[in-house]
């Protein structure tokens, strides 16, 4: 990406570093989200992908570096000022983060009710429209505890799109779902993209990532080690990426550990891995 494009990006991070309790989570992380270019941040579990989304939304404060929302730096902004900048962005949290004390309908219409600009009838119409978009209009009076994991994520998508944001962030949207649930989420994401929404997803689900994104960032050992399109990612030679892509290569690492522990266990593991076939993309 050239410098001009990066500067025009309305959402971007520049050399962001973040630590928790002395432990470095991300180091000098750069990323930009251009309108219409759907991006996925990849990396193994616990590497700090969700942290990046929270930093972008101003939910966490970086140790150093700059974060821009709608082209404006969020450093030193008060919560009310941040709220205005976030108006254009929504997020679907990993487990939905639906408000347990509210019904599905109240969850979906939450932002609209808070803003208080629309009549109750208008909000109800929008809520029904968004719920029918995710195929859950019959759940409007249910509570989150009465929904399955996949349904919760779809309600969370309905809530995210209720105020018509331009950008939607997805935090591990397919984790813990069955194949039908994953298919539903992918379809919804693609439909939203066709409607003009720009998505930023963090995941370790490669199939979904390649299905819904054009650009990829790869986070490894607190640092960004790749930023580019799918072809370049597939051909990347960095060991961290190769390990992530290839179960055989990944297993070599495990083999070494097992070998240290128990030769018999190592032999069994090698036999088992030999039967496995690498994932084809």
């Amino acid at each position, binding site marked *: 990406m050239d410098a001009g494009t990066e500067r025009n990006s309305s959402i971007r991070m520049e050399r962001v570093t973040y630590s928790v309790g002395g432990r470095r989570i991300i180091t000098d992380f750069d990323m930009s989200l251009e309108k219409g270019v759907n991006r996925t941040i990849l990396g193994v579990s616990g590497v700090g992908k969700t942290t990046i989304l929270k930093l972008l939304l101003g*939910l966490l404060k970086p140790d150093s570096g700059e974060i821009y929302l709608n082209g404006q730096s969020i450093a030193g902004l008060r919560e009310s000022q941040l*709220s205005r900048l*976030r108006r254009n962005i929504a997020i679907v*949290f990993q*487990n939905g983060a639906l408000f*347990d004390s509210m019904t599905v309908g109240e969850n979906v219409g*939450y932002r609209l009710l*808070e803003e208080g600009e629309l009549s109750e009838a208008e909000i109800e119409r929008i809520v029904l429209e968004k719920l029918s978009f995710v195929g859950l209009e019959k759940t409007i009076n249910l509570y989150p505890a009465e929904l399955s994991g996949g349904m919760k994520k779809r309600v969370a998508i309905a809530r995210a799109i209720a105020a018509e944001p331009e950008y939607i962030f997805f935090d591990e949207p397919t984790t813990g779902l069955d194949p039908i649930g994953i298919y539903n989420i992918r379809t919804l994401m693609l439909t939203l993209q066709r409607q003009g929404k720009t998505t930023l997803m963090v995941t370790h689900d490669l199939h979904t990532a390649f299905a819904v994104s054009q650009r990829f960032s790869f986070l490894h050992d607190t640092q960004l080690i790749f930023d580019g399109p799918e072809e370049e990612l597939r051909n990347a030679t960095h060991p961290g990426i190769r390990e992530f892509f290839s179960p055989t290569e990944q297993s070599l690492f495990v083999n070494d550990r097992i070998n240290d522990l128990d030769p018999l266990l190592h032999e069994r593991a090698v036999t088992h891995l030999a039967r496995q076939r690498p994932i084809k993309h």
Partner: protein
Amino acid sequence: MNVAIFDRAAKLALLQIQEFFALAARAVLRGFAPPFYYREFTTQFAKIGVDSLFIICLTGLFTGMVMALQALIQLRPFAATSYVGGMVAVTMIKELGPVLSSLMVAGRVGSAITAELGTMVVTEQVDAMRVEGTDVVKRLVTPRLKATLVAMPLLTIVTDTVALGGGYLIAMGYDINLLMYYKSLPQFMVFQDLIEGVVKPAVFGFIIVMISCYIGLSTRGGAEGVGTSVKRAVVLSSVLILVTDFFMTKIFIVFR
């Protein structure tokens, strides 16, 4: 090494105190500007006030009864059992009523507030609210604070009244009629005692809610973190109620 540990602990403690007072100030100031979240206020008032009535009545009844019993044993050798009503009243209204009802509310309501907010934090519901444009303090803390500030004095009045009733039940067994019991009340009390009896629970309610909300919103680390937060909130609120009670009593004595 030890100096460094002490230094870090002291800084952390000061930071937490600063955060606590910042949260308290924001919660109070947010109460004067719309939206006022009336529905949230009534829900919290029902949870904090109405739902606590049974346990508060139980506390008041048995405390009043035991106070009367002890007082009667002490007063009997002096043929002064007719003063039992006044003794129960002054002890309950000035001290035991506010303290015991606050401790009950700290255990019952404070723990619930911390658990609820802590769970909302660890399940990212608080983050979701912030992204949806909600002022979390205004939405979650201020209605609870308002509800408690209204409910605590009322609950204490109920505790005191039930305790006086309980005291009379015991006094009846010692041939003290209602008139004697009632007439002894003003002999031990002045109007300022009644003020003390409603100001104290309001202050204790403030402590309970702010400690519970602060610890709840600072929760980290999943279900275990929520459990730890609840324990901290109840212990800290209870200790602060007792400590504050001492200093408030001193202040009221000075202005007597």
